[in-house]
């Protein structure tokens, strides 16, 4: 994303103009734009004119519209990588935005074609400027952080991952903030029957073949931005898959693919499902290579949280209420929070989470905002979306009891005050 202009007042109101370029930028926009903001972007609108004689004339025109947002929707890429398989040179092409962000709202600035208050849904387009205006307090540290993060040029690496099991494969593309599942492949392989195994072998070879064609179609293996191609599986499927891809590449003398040979990393995981991605990413082979990428950091931190939960339950807390209590006591060393929580349409809820984040940062704690488009973020979402590793052990029951007492105390005092007043 390109930052075109930024003007933020001291009270947190103001506007930011950006130009999204790819899928990931769309994801950022979806996270930045909130209900109640004003968004100005280009869009198509059908204009109907009724002439004096009563004939209706309708045409579609392109115009810039400013909307007071009532709803933002996100739909992940529909046909990912579809363009990359068309020609032999195509896998090198830069990714094109196919994910969609739709902003619905009422027109906030009238122009000659559209009346004030008319409803419109803007389909945010790539490579067109978008202006986002927020009211006082709207541009909090999290929102601004997000803008900054999204506009860093030359973002981190892309990694393609294939999670396979015998007869199944899931193609994923990981970028800094997103995991896109490109394709799920399932080839029925008859299981072995001890006497006759030819059916099983036939199924296997059909599976390798299908896998190879989808690999060509989906994985931009020759693109320089693709850092690694991870093949993860239980058992020995990954070796067989890798060998079959390479054999097929040399048979068809696919030079680009053969040149990408050292991009392949084979990793052992325990199950052929998407959630094994987390397991794959924290394996030493990958962790050493992509320590600095967001998804690897997230995966490692989540792993650390679970390990902490196992060794010292009092230092690993989760759930919004519990984490808020821990934040009050300044106990949080690392805060794990999902970006989903900031998408809340209720400004007060968002503010609550922003406050926790700022509070932790002020006290020198680390904050990691997970992207819910990654597997690790998704798992954090299931864990209520917020978790914390504490610097010192705190017993939840004790803290809750303290809170209760404090509340009772306050109530009593209030009651007494009221008593003295009357």
């Amino acid at each position, binding site marked *: 994303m390109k930052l075109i202009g930024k003007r933020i007042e001291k009270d947190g109101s103001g506007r930011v103009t950006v130009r999204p370029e790819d899928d990931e930028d769309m994801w950022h926009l979806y996270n930045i734009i909130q209900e109640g903001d004003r968004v100005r972007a280009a869009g198509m609108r059908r204009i109907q004119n009724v002439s004096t004689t009563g004939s209706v004339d309708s045409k579609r025109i392109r115009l810039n519209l400013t909307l007071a947002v009532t709803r933002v929707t996100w739909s*992940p890429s529909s046909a990912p990588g579809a363009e990359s398989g068309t020609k032999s040179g195509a896998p090198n092409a830069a990714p094109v935005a196919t994910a969609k962000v739709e902003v619905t709202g009422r027109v906030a600035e009238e122009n000659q074609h559209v009346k004030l208050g008319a409803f419109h849904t803007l389909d945010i387009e790539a490579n067109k400027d978008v202006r986002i205006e927020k009211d006082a307090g709207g541009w909090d540290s999290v929102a601004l952080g997000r803008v900054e993060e999204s506009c860093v040029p030359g973002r981190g690496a892309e990694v393609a991952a294939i999670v396979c099991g015998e007869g199944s494969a899931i193609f994923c593309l990981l970028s800094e903030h997103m995991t896109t599942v490109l394709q799920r492949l399932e080839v029925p392989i008859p*299981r072995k029957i001890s006497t*006759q195994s030819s059916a099983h072998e036939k199924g296997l070879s059909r599976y390798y073949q299908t896998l190879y064609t989808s690999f060509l179609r989906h994985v931009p293996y020759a693109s320089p931005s693709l850092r690694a191609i991870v093949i993860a599986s239980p058992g020995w499927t990954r070796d067989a898959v890798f060998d079959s891809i390479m054999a097929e590449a040399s048979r068809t003398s696919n030079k680009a693919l053969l040149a990408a040979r050292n991009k392949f990393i084979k990793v052992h995981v325990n*199950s052929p499902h998407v959630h094994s991605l987390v397991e794959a990413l924290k394996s030493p082979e990958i962790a050493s290579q992509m320590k600095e990428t967001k998804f690897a950091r997230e995966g490692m931190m989540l792993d650390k949280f679970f390990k902490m939960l196992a060794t010292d339950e009092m230092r690993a807390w989760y759930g919004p209420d519990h984490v808020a209590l821990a934040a009050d006591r300044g106990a949080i060393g690392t805060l794990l929070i999902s970006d989903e929580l900031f998408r809340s349409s209720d400004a007060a809820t968002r503010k609550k989470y922003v406050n926790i984040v700022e509070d932790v940062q002020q006290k020198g704690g680390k904050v990691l905002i997970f992207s819910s488009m990654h597997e690790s973020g998704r798992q954090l979402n299931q*864990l209520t979306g917020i978790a914390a590793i504490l610097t010192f052990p705190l017993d939840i029951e004790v803290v809750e009891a303290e809170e209760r007492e404090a509340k009772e105390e306050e109530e009593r005092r209030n009651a007494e005050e009221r008593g003295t007043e009357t």
Partner: protein
Amino acid sequence: MTVDQRQLDIAGLNLDDDDPLEVILDEPAKPPAVVEKLIEEAKAALTAQEKSEKRSLSLVVVGHVDAGKSTMMGRLLYELGQIDEKKRVANERGSAKMGKSSFSWAWELDGTQEERERGITMDIALQTLNTPHRIITILDAPGHRDFIPNMISGASQADSALLVVDAAVGEFEAGFDRGGQTREHLLLVRSLGVSQVIVAVNKLDQVEWAKSRYNEIVQLLKPFLVQSGFHPSRTKFVPVVAMEGVNLTRREPADCPLFKWYEGPTLVDLLDALDPPTRDINAPLRFPISNIFKGTTSGITVSGRVCGGIVVAGERLRIVPGDESATVKLIDNDGESLPWAGAGSNINLILTSVDPVSLNIGSVLCRPGSIIPLTFSFIARIIVFDIQIPITAGTSIELFHHSLDVPASISRLISVLDRSNGNVIKSKPRVLTKNMSAEVEISLRGSLYSGPASRALPIPIEPFSVNKEMGRILVRRGGETIGAGAYHPLRAHQLRLIIGRLGVVMELLT
């Protein structure tokens, strides 16, 4: 006249209290008369068979990797005359050619190219053993930890187990220690409802036939077996050397040092005395599919175990999930075609007039009219195994149900239960730690990351109280089995809670 709109709405929705809901159920479609007659016949025959001499049962062979499971089964098949000399020689030659002559017995069961090259079982192999009084369907399970999903698929089709342990110094310990498969396999088969187990202590020749080593292993395993829920009277131990065929069928060679101190029965003696399972032939038909292939005959062959009821050749069955149905052309049991098969039998069904696309491993064949329910999320009572990282709400898991392996998550921790009496100790726990018994909600995971399309496919599962075999589940995470349990539908007070919530929603609507 003023009309109370709310009253009208409620009346329209049939929510009046004084007018009890009348549930109108469709009369289930009756099976054709011919089929019905066959079912009656089958029931009579099965009851008669209960008393007969030769009874059938299925046995899963489990144990740590390289304990010698496949070799033992290969040798046993040979000793019982089910492998002829010619085949044995062929296997011997073939394995020697690959430089793996020690795997020659296992070749009979490890049929695929890859298994033979690696010298490891990767998937279940099915064979039939004929002992004097039993017909035993053998499911030879893989021991390698990466193939536990396949082992589960096999164990869920069995009603007894044969555990093979390696007596060699260090090998037994490797299998029995934390992370070894001896432990995990035992827990798995017990959780899947297997209650009788024979422990074969293998490779005694590698420890000089020492009696002390045999006793040591027995002493180590006994408490663990009891702890895992196997009754001592239903666990048997036997020393063997599978490779040489010592103490498998007969007590020979007579000069073997083993027989200086071992007086007990041989492995086959023990197998012959296994209790056959009780069969629930009156339950509605359930046939979970564990394998699909194109056999030699026309049509598609599916194999699996009848988990309730009776299947009859010629009848039309529904495939759940899905809207398709298929006709059973033949029922095949080890090359023999049967007119019907009752609960507990491991059989192949040859299906016709069906699109192969609608058949999946894990689908259940049912009789139309009594179809197994489908669900996205359900409440299960589970026992947590010996785990390091506690289970939190939202833990990503792999859910195993028969041959099905689906990604899921534990969406809610409902309560911690007392293991002995099932009383609630704590409701809404924060985490579940090892050896707890708990009630949790399990939801299947959707396929996409976000958006409305992220719907999961429902799985067929029945409450434990209705059909035990169709209610059992296993929960794994990161290559480790973290719990086992069964699907228990909502309790009464929870139902009331939900109805209460619905009431609130209705209030809001009106």
